[in-house]
């Protein structure tokens, strides 16, 4: 079974996000990039599927940061078998439409049985890549998936609705799946193994051309001006605890 996992680096949301001087994008130069959290789950689900039924896992990404190798090495250390990157003149924050087209073109040549993407990314303003890749490849797509089981050339997936309700779907492979959570928490790769991959692994390089964009143009990017903001309490934990208790007492929420 040939499992492909498209991955993507995204700005680390823990960092302060600054808007650029045009006010139309983030200031990508000051950002730290991390692997999209949902891609971690896609990698895990792919490796679990391979462990269950055999096959190979290939991780692939569009190198928009110049740092994709490290994410690919980590994925290899977690159990992926092959890594590929699409290189070209891609700016940081390249739109989903462009990335999906590049990925679909590359994946088409890999004869995939299963394509597992993260269900969404924090920066996919023009939409989720998984469903786009599926449309390009003419394959069915199911997203918000929390379990993938493969047997006899078919996949059984569980998709989450709200309130904890799940829908079970089944499809003959190939198909594309947007992973919300792996059915087991993603494993860690030992640092020594990542280092070893960085030294020995071969990353296939595929040349790609920049695309025609998202089909929409950002006029203005800004931090949300919320209707309200919490009234902030300063002080030590003891002082904060006192304020909370006083407020709850005032509201009649203490059952004393």
């Amino acid at each position, binding site marked *: 079974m040939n499992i492909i996992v498209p991955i993507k680096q995204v700005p680390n949301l823990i960092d302060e996000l600054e808007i650029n001087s045009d006010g139309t994008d983030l200031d990508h130069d000051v950002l730290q990039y991390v692997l999209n959290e949902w891609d971690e789950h896609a990698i895990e689900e792919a490796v679990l599927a391979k462990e269950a039924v055999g096959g190979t896992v290939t991780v692939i990404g569009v190198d928009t940061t110049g740092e994709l190798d490290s994410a690919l090495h980590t994925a290899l250390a977690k159990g992926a078998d092959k890594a590929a990157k699409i290189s070209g003149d891609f700016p940081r924050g390249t739109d989903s439409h462009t990335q999906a087209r590049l990925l679909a073109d590359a994946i088409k040549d890999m004869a995939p049985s299963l394509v597992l993407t993260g269900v969404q990314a924090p920066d996919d303003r023009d939409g989720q890549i998984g469903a*786009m890749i599926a449309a390009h490849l003419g394959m069915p797509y199911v997203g918000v998936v929390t379990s993938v089981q493969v047997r006899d050339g078919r996949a059984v997936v569980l998709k989450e609705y709200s309130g904890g309700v799940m829908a079970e779907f089944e499809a003959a492979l190939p198909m594309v799946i947007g992973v919300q959570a792996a059915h087991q928490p993603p494993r860690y790769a030992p640092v020594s193994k990542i280092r070893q991959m960085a030294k020995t692994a071969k990353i296939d390089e595929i040349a790609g051309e920049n695309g025609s964009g998202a*089909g929409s143009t950002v006029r203005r*990017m*800004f931090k949300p001006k919320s209707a309200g903001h919490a*009234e902030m309490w300063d002080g030590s934990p003891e002082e904060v605890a006192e304020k909370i208790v006083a407020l709850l007492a005032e509201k009649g929420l203490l059952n004393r």
Partner: protein
Amino acid sequence: MPNDIFVLAEHFNGKLADISFEMTGKAKQLAPAWGGNAVALVLGSGVRSLAESIGADCVIYVDDPALADFNPEAYSRVLTALVKQRSPRLIMIGNTSMGMDLAAGLSVSTGLPLIAYVNSLAADDGTLVATSQIYGGKIQAEAVPDGEACIVSCLAGAFPADAGKGSAPVEQIPSPMPLDNLRLKFVQLIEPQGGDVDITQQPILVSIGRGIGGPENIDLAQELADALGGAVSASRPITDAGWLPKTRQVGKSGLAVKPKLYLALGISGAPEHLEGMRGAELIIAVNTDPKAPIFDVAHYGATCDMLDLLPVLTEAVRA
């Protein structure tokens, strides 16, 4: 018809989801800007009565056994064909579990742009202006489509639902595409197993997020909940990790709660989490990051370490 606004109505278990009304209301408000109609689309089986309870300008429904349960492949086929045939100006789809399977694929299959995670929509002199909430709720991006037509996927709760309630003339149309050779098969719905605690019925929730650090600290939250006479709920990463059962999850794919007190500890306030708790009567948030979006919906907040706060707060409540 090229100036119409299509709204994909979402329904589940024989009931229209709120997002259907939210988007319909917005579509009705926008439609006059382009001289078109707000047209709701209902796909399903036996859905005439649902179609009759949407307050659009008109409602089109496709009734087909293959659409009895949501099936992304079947829905995508129908939507793609309808959009190509009727060339609406704007297509509104919920950024919900169902809508997320459709909007981006429809963008590729129709060649129309998609603006996702939209929480504000306006017609500015005839130009559509759509604002997306991205980067975990930390950034808003206001965008305009490069051409005239566009798809938007809308966040739940972004627009008032009341404006989309009512009824309108309905028209049944046959499926514009055959649906008999689907590769994707819906098998069954799986209801959640009853949990130990029903968090939707609790007056007080001590809700913990990734800031809890590890499963060994959950007891600290439980002790506070016990002292307050409430229960412990959580954000998704906590239930994904298996530290609490799935039935304790608040948010988009968890439960919507409206307690008298929601104590959000170490929760960043991602849009998917806020969806489930912003209606709480009193929200107090504790998060070491003063910029965490949770503080935009909380009434009171503090930036101390939740692990330091938990034991002292439990003591203070007990005192």
